[in-house]
């Protein structure tokens, strides 16, 4: 099991980002303009799909950074506006 950290940086107004995990169905990470610190989730070794939904401010942006026990993932940008559900794989290394 690896510790994976998710952190967002938002710009241009209020935003919400919600992340769910196929391999950890009870975990729900929620980010908004008040969430500054990273949130850490424990995930099993191997491929883990995470799904992102939410919205950035209409003219804004949400920058998602993933670190920890995972192979490199380029930071992702979402928005402006509505963020429909999109899934991405992450490879947990321990």
């Amino acid at each position, binding site marked *: 099991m690896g510790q994976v950290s998710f952190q967002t940086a938002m710009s*241009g107004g209020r935003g919400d980002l919600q992340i769910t995990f196929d391999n950890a169905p009870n975990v729900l990470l929620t980010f908004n303009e008040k969430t500054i610190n990273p949130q850490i989730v424990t995930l099993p070794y191997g491929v883990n799909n995470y799904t992102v939904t939410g919205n950035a401010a*209409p003219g804004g942006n949400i920058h998602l950074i993933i670190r920890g026990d995972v192979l490199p993932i380029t930071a992702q940008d979402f928005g402006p506006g509505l963020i429909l559900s*999109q*899934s991405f794989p992450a490879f947990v290394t321990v």
Partner: protein
Amino acid sequence: MKKIIYLCSITLLLNNTFLLAQSQTFNLVSAEADINKGKTGNKEDLLTKYLQIAANNLTSNNKNLTLKLNWFALNNMDSAKKYDDANYLRSRWQRNGQFIFAGGMDKDSKFNSIQAGFNYNLLNLRDTTEFHYFNYYGKALKEIGIIKGKEMKNFISPITASLKVQLDKIIKDQYQKKENDQLKAEIYSAIKSFPNHPTIDELIKVAQKNLNTCIAESDAMGISNLSANLSDFTANLMLDKALNMYTLSFGKQSIAFDFFVDAELIKKIVTAIDTDIQNDQLLQNEYKAVSLTDADKKIQKQYRDLVDYVTRQPILTFGYNYTYGTGSVKPSHVLGLQGLWGLNKIGSKKTNELSISLSDTITNIQSAQITSVNRNIGAFQAGINTVLLMNNKISLMELNMAVENDLLFTKALAGESKNKFSFNSTFRVRLPNSPWLKFTVKYDVKKANFLGFLDFTYNIDSTNSPKS
């Protein structure tokens, strides 16, 4: 000559080069279209989002050039910091304020007045960047994500297995040729659609390292499972990308990855997702969605309706304006309250706005006939502003019908009425991304005469996005 300078200054201010230069300073927020859409020219006259230049009363004896500048536009902080959420939300008070500067000239094109003032929005309900839209559809989006994840798991195994067969073949070939450090090139050569991703680079490096060891140690058994993680990750990435593309294009496009993820497979998965959506209680109760695309479109419509709704929320500004004038323009102090209130509910396409204003003008007049007289005039105006023509959610034609009552609180001049009632009508029109042409007609009920004013207004946002 001064008239030429006046007209040239308008042209210069509206020149694209100027606009581009100022907008590049704030290019961080590259997509403000949603914010700018739905705003009315009436609202922009009340509180500019960034910068407004207006040539007013062009057909009358006293014309002026007005510059309205949003306080936030004056914040010279580095654009990345300026729009970063912590600062952006802290500087809300700046976005609610604007400064006004104007210079006027008479019919002989002689400068005869200057003005300075400010407006401040006392309510903060119309800022589309501060509304929590997600509260309305967050649960539905989460539900869709769970359904997609479930169906992906159901369909991923054959893709992973198929990829593993291909990768194992390449690895075996490399082992037999005793090729070191050629695995990545061989994979991308053999599988044209193999995706690029930093995690894939790392997984290939690990596989390559283990392959090199197997070659060095002539360990044929060791190569049997080298592709497991790479196949697993790549299969998920391919399917994620294909479904994400399908989602973001509302079912119009997807990506094919050779024979691993093709149109037929996407169709099968989407059919399974659509069936799940049709059986999902939340998505049926709230959206009556028949498919993934239908659900996403309905949520997108809900989001857009909410943005439109927020742009119609009440705005109430308090302002002060001082005019220093000579000739027919008298020095004056004007205190004013102005309000706008959208009259339509969420989802309505109508754009009627109640427009009210209350002002008090204190001035002093002198002439050869009369000695100095102080004047205090109150004015109340109420009307309805309607968008007559919209293109891509941008207002292009508006009509404002209003009544106005002016009350003189001080002594009236000879033959002057203390109470003046008039009907006002303002018609404005423009082409997309072009200045407003605004024509105002006032009808004085008692004197039964018409007065007309022609204004020319250009609003500049902080980006190159559509102007409003």
